[in-house]
């Protein structure tokens, strides 16, 4: 167990952790100096652009690039063929960047060019002739599962898919325990409903961008905005046949990711164009390209059946989920199925899931991948049971809530968890008792996410003047430099502003997994603490040398080495700065480091309360009040923890009400821009209140749990439940856009 047993973390008082210092990269980011993906240039640089398919599904008979190549100013034109054979596990990644034999969705890359200017590039794209044999297409998950649906991948699904299914069904699974049918027999009321959710995009404001240089000797430099530059390195190296050590990837500041920047879309293309031209190549996706050809989340269809007794005990629960994740297998349906019933202690529970392919771009992770859609379905049915049985939705959730020792719906038995704490906090909060006006309703929902750890490598160097350079390898997407600096300062016992944290490139530090899975504050924080302790060990040794005593007889307290045990009080304490100043005389530079594949991340739960007002004449839904209750384990920098809660909640509000991928009958995406892909704007929203609960994670020295993802799990259901209470109609189709709400109100009479 990593939790500091020795220090008794529950009782530990922190000096820096839990405070709210200014983030170290703040000034760069408020002055426009911070350099994001598109902000880097190189001498002699070319601009790279991708020709994209206008068809949702077509066989490529031939591509004639000769006219484009002949255009003055065009330096290279490439297609997927230029990459030759790539490793099996990279085939889909490359295919999603540039199509092989078939284009699989509207916007699929077909060819790419490098040119001296955007104007030349634009002209050249028009000169590429692609001979398409247009094929029938399908973009809807249920339609894709029909036996006669157009087949997207001839190979069909894996061994889990029963015979006779559509070849678009890639994978099937079941989880759970007990027998739901037995449970339904014990219920006083059983409700069965079907639900649908449309795909949402992560909607990061910074389009994907990169700058690549690949020299003939195989040495390469890549600058890009990504959640994981090591992952980019590994994928690009595999696709281009480069040595990992020869490809140095530097992560720019990143303008949002939310899971969407965990893979590559243009980086291998830019490297190949640079290889062909011998010049640096910069590529920046347009917003249209980001929507059409990056990775939104899955769209889903589901059936849920839950039984409850009059006193609110859930007796049985069943759910079947169908997720389409675009034209490639790998939708996050398993996580949705595993997460949806996790907040509850259930005797009989079963989930079934299908991973389905359609003519859409390959889905990428989006904040708690798969969970919000599933929780929308299951939390809606639980809410409807409460309504029909006249039960309080918070009390009922509390009655069924999982706790330490509960065998979770996805298998493991929970250690100490916070689901009850979030519900108790919601129940006690003034929001829950506040009066509501006409056409207003309150909704509640609870959500769960796993959280991850992963490979992490941190280096901490103590400088001769007593300052500290902390080097880590995860892009700072929401204030993590601040929290790392705080944890290092806490351990070392020196002021926050004596430490500078930098994000290293892939050549300067060992492997760091992607900034995802809510892992950074947990895993990089853990490694930072361990690296600081490693440096402290060295400093204690150096002090012991100076004092001529045994290193074991030195302890570290408040930024000072102190003689302890029999030597206590014998020498005045030596500060970090004093030890650092003598480093050259005591053995050389002082550093600490830590490398780990951090396992044992703690799960996290959240309960959301929302008040909505529905305009009964237009179906418009206004969010009036919103409160998030979430377990953070330990909030290192509470402002940024609150920020994660607020941001996740608002992304959920957008998804619930207005955000959606709209495909026409022609299989083309109709709203590839921020005009009609409607993310929430400031005037749509109230303040988002937050309540941070701290149930320590035993897997982290300070008890930290990941907080980044759980906050997007409950909103879809919480808002649907509030709309149901406000307007008397149960919306089962996300987004709950005004036409759908109005139609439901009118249908209900």
């Amino acid at each position, binding site marked *: 167990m990593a939790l500091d047993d020795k220090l008794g973390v529950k009782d530990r008082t922190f000096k820096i952790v839990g405070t709210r210092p200014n983030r170290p990269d703040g000034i760069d980011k408020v002055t426009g100096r911070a350099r994001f993906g598109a902000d880097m240039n190189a001498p002699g640089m070319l601009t790279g652009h991708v020709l994209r398919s206008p068809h949702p599904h077509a066989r490529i008979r031939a591509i004639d690039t000769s006219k484009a190549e002949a255009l003055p100013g065009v330096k290279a034109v490439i297609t997927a063929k230029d990459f030759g054979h790539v490793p099996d596990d990279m085939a889909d990644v490359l295919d999603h960047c540039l199509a092989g034999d078939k284009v699989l969705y509207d916007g699929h890359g077909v060819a790419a060019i490098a040119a001296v200017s955007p104007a030349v590039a*634009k002209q050249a794209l028009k000169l590429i002739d692609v001979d398409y044999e247009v094929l029938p297409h399908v973009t809807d998950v249920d339609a894709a599962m029909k036996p006669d649906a157009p087949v997207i991948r001839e190979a069909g699904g894996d061994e889990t898919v029963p015979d006779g299914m559509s070849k678009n069904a890639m994978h099937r699974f079941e989880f759970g325990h007990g027998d739901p049918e037995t449970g339904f027999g014990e219920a006083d009321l059983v409700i069965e409903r079907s639900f649908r959710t449309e795909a949402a995009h992560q909607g990061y404001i910074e389009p994907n961008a990169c700058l690549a240089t690949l020299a003939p000797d195989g040495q390469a430099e890549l600058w890009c905005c990504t959640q994981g530059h090591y992952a980019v390195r590994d994928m690009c190296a595999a696709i281009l046949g480069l040595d990992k050590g020869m490809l140095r990837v530097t992560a720019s500041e990143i303008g949002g990711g939310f899971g969407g920047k965990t893979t590559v879309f243009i980086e291998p293309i830019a490297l190949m164009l640079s290889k062909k031209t011998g010049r640096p190549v910069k590529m920046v996706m*347009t917003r*249209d390209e980001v929507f059409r050809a990056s990775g939104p989340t899955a769209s889903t269809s589901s059936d849920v059946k839950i039984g409850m007794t009059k006193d609110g005990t859930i007796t049985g629960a069943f759910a079947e989920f169908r997720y389409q994740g675009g034209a490639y297998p790998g939708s996050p349906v398993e996580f949705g199925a595993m997460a949806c019933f996790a907040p509850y202690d259930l005797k009989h529970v079963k989930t079934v899931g299908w991973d389905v392919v359609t003519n859409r771009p390959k889905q990428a992770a989006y904040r708690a991948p798969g969970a919000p859609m599933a929780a929308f379905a299951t939390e809606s049915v639980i809410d409807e049971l409460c309504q029909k049985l006249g039960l309080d939705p918070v009390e009922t959730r509390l009655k069924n809530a999982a706790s330490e020792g509960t065998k979770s719906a996805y298998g493991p038995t929970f250690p100490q968890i916070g689901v009850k704490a979030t519900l108790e906090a919601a129940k006690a909060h003034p929001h829950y008792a506040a009066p509501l006006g006409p056409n207003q309703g309150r909704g509640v929902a609870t959500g769960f996410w796993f959280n991850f750890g992963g490979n992490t490598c941190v280096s901490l160097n103590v400088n001769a003047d007593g300052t500290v350079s902390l080097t880590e390898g995860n892009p700072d997407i929401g204030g993590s430099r601040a929290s790392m600096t705080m944890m290092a300062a806490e351990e070392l016992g020196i002021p926050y502003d004596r430490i500078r944290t930098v994000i290293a490139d892939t050549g300067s530090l060992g492997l760091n997994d992607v900034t995802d899975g809510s892992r950074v504050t947990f895993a990089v924080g853990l490694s930072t603490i361990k690296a600081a302790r490693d440096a402290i060990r060295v400093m204690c040794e150096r002090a012991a040398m100076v004092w001529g005593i045994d290193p074991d007889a030195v302890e570290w307290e408040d930024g000072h080495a102190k003689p302890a045990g029999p030597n206590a009080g014998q020498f005045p304490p030596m500060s970090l700065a004093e030890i650092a100043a003598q480093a050259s005389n005591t053995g050389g530079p002082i550093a600490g480091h830590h490398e780990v594949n951090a396992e044992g991340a703690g799960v996290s739960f959240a309960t959301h309360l929302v008040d909505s007002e529905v305009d009964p*004449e*237009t*179906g*418009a839904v206004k969010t009036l009040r919103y409160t998030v209750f979430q377990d953070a384990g330990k909030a290192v920098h509470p402002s940024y923890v609150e920020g994660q809660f607020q941001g996740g909640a608002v992304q959920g509000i957008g998804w619930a*009400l*207005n955000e959606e991928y*709209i495909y026409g009958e022609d299989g083309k995406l*109709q*709203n590839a821009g921020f*005009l*009609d892909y*409607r993310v*929430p*704007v400031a*005037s*749509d929203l109230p303040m988002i209140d937050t309540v941070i609960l701290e149930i320590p994670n035993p897997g982290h020295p300070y008890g930290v749990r990941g907080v980044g993802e759980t906050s997007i799990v409950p909103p879809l259901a919480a808002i649907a439940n509030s709309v149901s209470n406000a307007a008397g109609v149960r919306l089962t189709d996300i987004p709950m*856009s*005004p*036409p759908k709400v*109005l*139609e439901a109100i*009118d249908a209900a009479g």
Partner: protein
Amino acid sequence: MRYEAPSTLENAVALLAGESGSAHVLAGGTDLLVGMKSGFTEPDLIVDIKRIDGMHTVTQEDGGWRIGAAVPGIQLGEHDGVKADWPGVVEALELIGSTQIQGRATMAGNLCNASPAADSVPAMVAADATVRIAGPNGSRDIPVIEVATGPGQTSLAKGEIVESIFLPARPVRSGDAYLRFIPRTEMDIAVVGCGVSLTLDEGGTCTAACVALGAVAATVLLVEDAARVLIGTAVDDAALDALAAACSAAAKPIDDKRGTVAFRKKVSGVLARRAAKIALERAKG
């Protein structure tokens, strides 16, 4: 592509008339540059009219207001006189896009872009506004509703540009209002828009009315049936019901990514009723 910024109207007209390729007028540019970005519009010539005298001014004329073609939304929003006389028109213009868009977007541009969903157009139609068009053969004035002939299509001939828009003198005891429905609170294209202008007699009976709907047909609709049911009434609930029914009946929308036929028809009536109530309050003073 050429960019020209002439200083006289005559030069602007000559440039536009003389261009053999695709020529576009640039006022605020908030539609033109979006079209260029997407590749939908590929101009050979852009004529920036903002350096022409008079294009930026709002002047009183015959008790009404003449608004230069390059006056951006934010400037009109700051104009107390126009706001007092035609609050519905100003509000409609101010609904277009963000604060940033307001810094550039013009009423003339909104009109000439000829989107069926243009916010300021139903309000101008309800206000009985006219447009002064300059061209190679001199200038002419036409009603606002005659400008757009279909989505993206106008009745302007080659070489013609909108010089100004004229909002007539506001009759006594009259008021106007414009409301639109959008999914968010800002930044969307109208799913339905409705402009209402009405005049009362001393006894509070409606003597004149004009109702226009946006985004429910290929061009903005002037709903004469809706005006008819208001005139002669005190704009009471029964009249408002009839107004709503007339607007819902007149709307001929399509299903698209922004709304359905059923939604648009119903909301046409809802907005007409709500806008008429505001116009009524304003008419009562």
